[in-house]
């Protein structure tokens, strides 16, 4: 199945989420609890893996699931580094580093966009969703 289908079924996998610790499982769990659309996101845990093993795992999951979008947590993280190496040979893939819950919520509700367009839109929503409340500096 292509991840760039413009109107995917709400439970079809569309992106991989990967990061430190239980970041991916935690975020996907939160998306599922809020929207019931967590199945669009594939959480990948990479603890104890070498950089090469992380790259191999992410590439294999992308191919198995037919997705071309990866969300990661940290620009300096091993998942981001591995994903950037994967993107080098996958021109239709997109990586969003620094993803947060608002990013993923926007992504799973995107309609009428390809997965990569949806990812870019979601990244802007995630960036804009960070707010500071309370004591003035």
């Amino acid at each position, binding site marked *: 199945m292509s991840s760039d289908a413009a109107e995917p079924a709400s439970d079809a996998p569309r992106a991989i989420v990967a990061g*430190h610790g239980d970041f991916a499982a935690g975020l996907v769990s939160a998306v599922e609890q809020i929207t019931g659309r967590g199945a669009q996101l594939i959480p990948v845990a990479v603890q*104890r*893996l*070498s*950089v090469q*093993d992380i790259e191999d795992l992410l590439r294999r999951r992308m191919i198995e699931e037919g997705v071309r979008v990866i969300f990661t947590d*940290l*620009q*300096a*993280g*091993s998942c*981001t*580094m591995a994903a*950037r*190496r994967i993107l*080098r040979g996958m021109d239709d893939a997109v990586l969003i580093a620094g993803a947060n819950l608002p990013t993923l919520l926007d992504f799973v509700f995107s309609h009428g966009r390809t997965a990569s367009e949806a990812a870019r839109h979601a990244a802007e929503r995630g960036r804009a969703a960070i707010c500071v409340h309370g004591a003035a500096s």
Partner: protein
Amino acid sequence: MTLVLYRIDDRLIHGQVVVGWGQPLDIGFIVLVDDEVARSEWEEDLYRMAVPPEMDVFFHGAADAADALPRYRSDRRRGILVTGDISTMRHLVEAAHVDAVNVGGIHHRAGRVQRLRYVFLSPQEEDELRALAAAGARVSAQDVPNARPVPLDDLLAGAEL
């Protein structure tokens, strides 16, 4: 200031290095010693883009890193030196004395045995760690600053598993 941490980590520059150690140690630069990275401008850019703009990254192969150490040791900022394997660090320790070596992450590969949650070693790598110690470096394993350092003897005994 100087190089405040000499780390062996097969993930090279990643979250634990940039954030976990980099922030509490107030790091201004990272020296990455790795032949494969030093041969590729693309790989160098990949790691350069992983650090905050105020942090410098310098790249060396194993052969030329020791000669560059005095420059980094006299830098007014604090720095971390990272190698991706034990043999590269051993080369540095034997060429230019290093007080302490941090084993930060050596992950699973065929032929390696798990010694810590984040350290897997082959018999040859265990010998190389002993050689580091014999060359005068204090060797311990510690993934993040607030973890307890595991001395070499305990590491090799798998005492913390």
